Each structure stands twice: as structure tokens, then as C-alpha cells.
């Protein structure tokens, strides 16, 4: 600030800073600390994953990824995500629309319930499913009679994944929709639009970037979930192992290179997710600038 007030109080170079600017040494110390922490705890482990994975060369790396058990784990992870994300997409959009645009009894309770998977430990979530669906559980005998297998099978893994990733999309959309209010919807209805048209042409386009962001987060968590899935999986190789579980098994068997190879694939998925997320955020910022 080179205004009159600044020169009035100027005692030297130091005082010519703006009110929210810190001296250079403070700025660089804080940036340095941040970078050091980032390098030590985030960048180094990530780099280690890739160096360990490639320690025995590309041949071993590719072999670890293409052996049948690994392939089956990759397939199961993708399947669980492919089911959990759309399910939570539909649920998340419906729930946030209900909570943000309507007033009804039990609204606060519903909001709290949506957060439940965040507040409950994933292991507990897994155990709850075991208690309900396993052969000794509440629904176990009935399920066995009907010939359904949920626990220690693919349905259990999908259920656990859905549970854990439940809040991501709704949590992303509720504040956004609440901030936007209901005036635009009212305007659409006055102009003669039906409920579905209003939702598809006004509500949904207004939250599309938030929705995409929620989907990305939900997908990242669905692929990386360990705790809840571990409890319900039973760790049957080639059948009920997801990628995170497969990594653990390999690691416990001292097959470090193979373990890190699979881990590197998970890390890659995360990096791609991060990249998409950054692009989305950038597009959102641009859209907001343009007011679109």
C-alpha cells in the first residue's frame, strides 16, 4: 500500500507491508516447514512405493500385476467401485435435494445419519455387517436357506464399500444446494416447468461441478477402503480380495516387490483421481469467474 496512510506511519521498510503480510523470514520459514513436512511424510513414501515396486525391474513388476490373484483383486476393486459410486450418486443426489430444498420433520436427524459412516470406525461397520449377514447373524439362516452368500463373498464387499463411501456425495452437495436456495426452482415452476424438468434443467446443472467432485472423492475412497472390507472379505485369494487386501497379504508373505507393485497401481489410481480433482476445481473456479 503506497497510500497516504502508509507514508504517515512509515518508520522504515518493514512498516510498508499490508496489514495481512508477514515479513519475508516468517513467510519463508512457514513455506519451508510446509514443504519439508510434505516431502518427508507424503512425497518420500510415495516415491518409495514406486522405487520398491521397480526394484526387481519391469519384468517382475508386470508379472506381479498380471498374476491371476492380482488381476482378480483389481477386477473386484473396480467392480466394488463401479457399484458403490452409482448407488451413492443416486442416494447422494436424492438425499441432498431432500435436505437442502425441503423442510420436514426429522430433517436434522437425516443429516446426522448421513454422517454416520464418517463417525463410525470402518472396522465396526464391517463387524456390523458380519453380525447381520453372516451364517450366525440375524439374517444368516434365512440367507443360507435362500442360497445367498453375503459375508466372505463379493456382495459383502460391495455392501461394506457402499457404507463407507455413503456420505461423500451428499456431504458435497448439501451445502452447495443450501447456499443456492430454492428461488431458481420457484422461478422455473412459475414459468410452467414440471418437477422433473425443474430438477434436470435447473437444480442438477447448478450443482454439476460439486457433484463431479463428490463422485471423484467417493470413487477414491471406494477403491482404497481397507478396514470395513477386510472384516467382511475373508481374504479368499482370487475370490474376495480387493487391491488393498491383496497388498497386505503379499506384504505379510514377504513378497515386498509384488506388494509394492500392486500398491503402486493403487497410488497411480489416487494420483489420477487427484489430477481429475484438480482439473475439476480449476474448471469450477473458472465457471464461477464467468458466472456460468
Amino acid at each position, binding site marked *: 500500500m503506497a497510500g497516504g496512510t502508509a507514508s504517515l506511519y512509515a518508520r522504515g521498510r518493514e512498516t510498508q507491508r499490508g496489514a495481512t503480510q508477514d515479513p519475508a523470514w516468517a513467510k519463508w520459514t512457514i513455506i519451508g516447514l510446509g514443504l519439508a513436512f510434505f516431502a518427508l511424510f507424503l512425497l518420500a513414501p510415495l516415491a518409495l512405493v514406486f522405487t520398491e515396486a521397480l526394484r526387481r525391474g519391469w519384468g517382475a513388476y508386470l508379472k506381479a500385476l498380471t498374476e491371476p490373484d492380482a488381476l482378480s483383486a483389481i477386477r473386484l476393486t473396480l467392480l466394488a467401485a463401479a457399484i458403490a459410486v452409482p448407488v451413492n450418486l443416486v442416494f447422494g443426489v436424492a438425499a441432498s435435494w431432500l435436505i437442502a430444498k425441503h423442510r420436514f420433520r426429522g430433517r436434522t436427524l437425516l443429516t446426522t445419519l448421513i454422517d454416520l459412516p464418517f463417525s463410525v470406525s470402518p472396522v465396526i461397520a464391517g463387524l456390523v455387517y458380519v453380525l447381520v449377514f453372516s451364517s450366525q447373524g440375524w439374517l444368516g439362516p434365512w440367507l443360507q436357506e435362500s442360497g445367498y452368500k453375503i459375508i466372505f463373498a463379493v456382495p459383502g464387499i460391495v455392501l461394506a464399500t457402499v457404507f463407507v463411501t455413503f456420505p461423500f456425495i451428499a456431504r458435497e452437495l448439501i451445502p452447495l444446494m443450501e447456499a443456492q436456495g430454492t428461488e431458481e426452482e420457484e422461478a*422455473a415452476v*412459475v414459468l410452467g416447468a414440471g418437477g422433473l424438468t425443474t430438477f434436470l434443467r435447473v437444480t442438477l446443472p447448478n450443482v454439476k461441478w460439486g457433484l463431479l467432485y463428490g463422485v471423484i472423492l467417493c470413487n477414491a475412497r471406494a477403491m482404497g477402503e481397507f478396514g470395513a472390507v477386510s472384516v467382511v472379505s475373508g481374504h479368499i485369494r482370487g475370490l474376495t480380495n480387493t487391491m488393498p487386501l491383496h497388498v497386505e497379504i503379499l506384504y505379510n508373505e514377504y513378497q515386498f516387490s509384488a506388494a509394492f507393485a500392486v500398491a503402486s497401481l493403487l497410488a497411480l489410481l489416487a494420483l489420477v483421481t487427484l489430477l481429475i480433482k484438480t482439473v475439476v476445481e480449476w474448471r469450477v473456479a473458472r465457471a464461477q469467474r*464467468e458466472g456460468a
Partner: protein
Amino acid sequence: MSIRVEHINKRFGDFTALNDVTLDVPDGKLTALLGPSGCGKTTLLRVIAGLEQADSGRILFNGEDSSRAHVRERNVGFVFQHYALFRHMTVFENVAFGLRVKPRRERPSDSEIRAKVTRLLELVHLDWLGHRYPAQLSGGQRQRIALARALAVEPRVLLLDEPFGALDAKVRKDLRRWLRDLHHQLGLTSIFVTHDQEEALELADQVVLINKGAVEQVGEPAQVYSQPATPFVQSFLGHSNLFEGRVVSGALQVEDGGLALPAGSGAEGARVAAYVRPHEFHVTRETSGPGIEAKVARALELGALARIELVGARSGRPFEAEIPKRELAQLALAPGETVRLVPDALRVFPAQEVAAE
């Protein structure tokens, strides 16, 4: 199209938003719903539009009961206070929305839509803004686009919620005149909500004063201003000096003097409240006769008029009088001088009504 509102009641929890409101809106006229914030005027507008359901009462469009008709079927144009433009659509698409969502058999063709939207944008003098997004427009432009969008579906009535509330003074004045002209051009029955008396009196053919969910008075602007029906209307419209006291031998006795009352203003001994507008006061140096004794605090010249601020000689209460500037020059008042205020006209209400207000 004429609108009739019959015995409308609306409560939000313990709060009575509308209390037995009955109202006639004549065909082709511009009606203002005027009142302080929270008086229920916006709720009434939303009930007429069908955005809000009344607890009881009826809304008649052209004599036909529309109370149970859905907003969609009422065919009203509604301009929201904050415009509620669709933020992800261009100005053109905003205006076209009402046409595009029509059922297939009623929907105009693309070229018809294009022609109509262009015509509407020309009507609001913004045809060069079609490709922009709402966030790129100024407040006044958004307002006009919101109006064009509402008109696109050829509504039977136009409802505007605080149409100038969010605009700065200069734009507000221009838009007000423009809306007035547009109304004359279209002849569409219109209702607008405002808390700004100047806006209501300048713009409307009919003013409806609302206070605490009830209609206080309905009339032409000049009528409600000069013949207020209730103390609320009197004090809400324009500035007034209030005198409260007892009727003693046909005059209102207050601390600073006496005011001659018109016949039938109140029984002997009754407590009444008399309102005098600043321009209704006559300032004299006469020392006897009816009138209020007051000391001149200061005089301000405002264009052709001069405003004199005074304090009651005994009560110390502030009063205000407005006289032509020429008269002020002739009087040559000095600050601190005691003068006599004699009203040319005043309006009297029983005092307990004031207390109930």
C-alpha cells in the same frame, strides 16, 4: 385480468402473516402492496402466485376460483426480489426457458422461440446481451431480464416482489419510470410489493397499505396520502407531526397550545391524536389564538421549500414545518425565536387506536 383476494389467512407457526385479507385488483391496473418489512406483503404476493398456500380463503382470477390451481396452471409472471435468474444459462436461454418447457404440442418451434426471445430482449432494451450469463450483468440489467423472462410465457398477471429493492438510487429511478411506461404499453394487470412509499405513490394506480398482515387502506396514491384511513397509514406515508391530548370545547389541548378541531372529531373530554403534515403548518408571529407555540431551532432551504425545525415551547418536543422559501424570507426567523404553528388541515383519530398500532 382482475384478481380478487377473499378472506385469506396464513400463519407460519405462531406468526400470523396474513389476517383475513380481502382485496380487489382491477383489470389492467398497476397495484402496489405497500407496508413495512415483515408486514406480510410478500406472503400475499406469493399466495396470489400460488407459491404459498393460504390456510383459508380464496383467490379468484377473473371471478374464477383459482385457490387450488397449481402455480404452473395459474399462468402468472413472477419477478423475484433477487431475480432468480438461472445462473448456468445465458440471458437468451433464461428468457426462452418458459417456452422450452411447454408441453410438446404447445411448444413453439425453435425459430419462433428465437424470434420471440429476441423481441422480448428488444422490449427490455437488452437484445445485445443475449449470449451473456447472469453473473456478467448489472443489477438493473438482471432486473429487466427477469421481467423479460416472466413476460415470455404471456402471463395473465405480472407479480413483482420488491422490483427495485436491490438497486441503487439512480438506477431505481430510471427503472421505475421505464416500468411505468412498459405497464402502459402492455396493459397487463400487475401487482408489485414495496416498502418504499415514494415508489408506490409514484408508480401505482392503486396502493394497498398493509400492516401486520392486514389491509389498512386501499386507494389511489393521492387519496391514501391526503385522506389516510388509519393512524398507521397517516404515519407511514410521508412525515407527520403528532399531537395527543384531550378535546376541550372543540379544540385539542396539548402542552404547547391548542388545535382547533373540525366538527365531530371527538366527544368532549375524549383522548384523540391529531396528525399534521409539515407543509400543512402555517408559521405566524401572532401571540394569541389557536396554534402551537414553538421555538425555531433552525431553518433549511430545500429547493423551492424551506423546512423549519422547531421545539415545543413548553414540551420541548421536536416539530417540523415546511413553507415556501419566499415566505421564509419574509418572516426572517431567527433561531431561538418563539412562533406560532397553525395547521391548515389536520386529521384526527381516537387516541386508543394509536396505542393499538
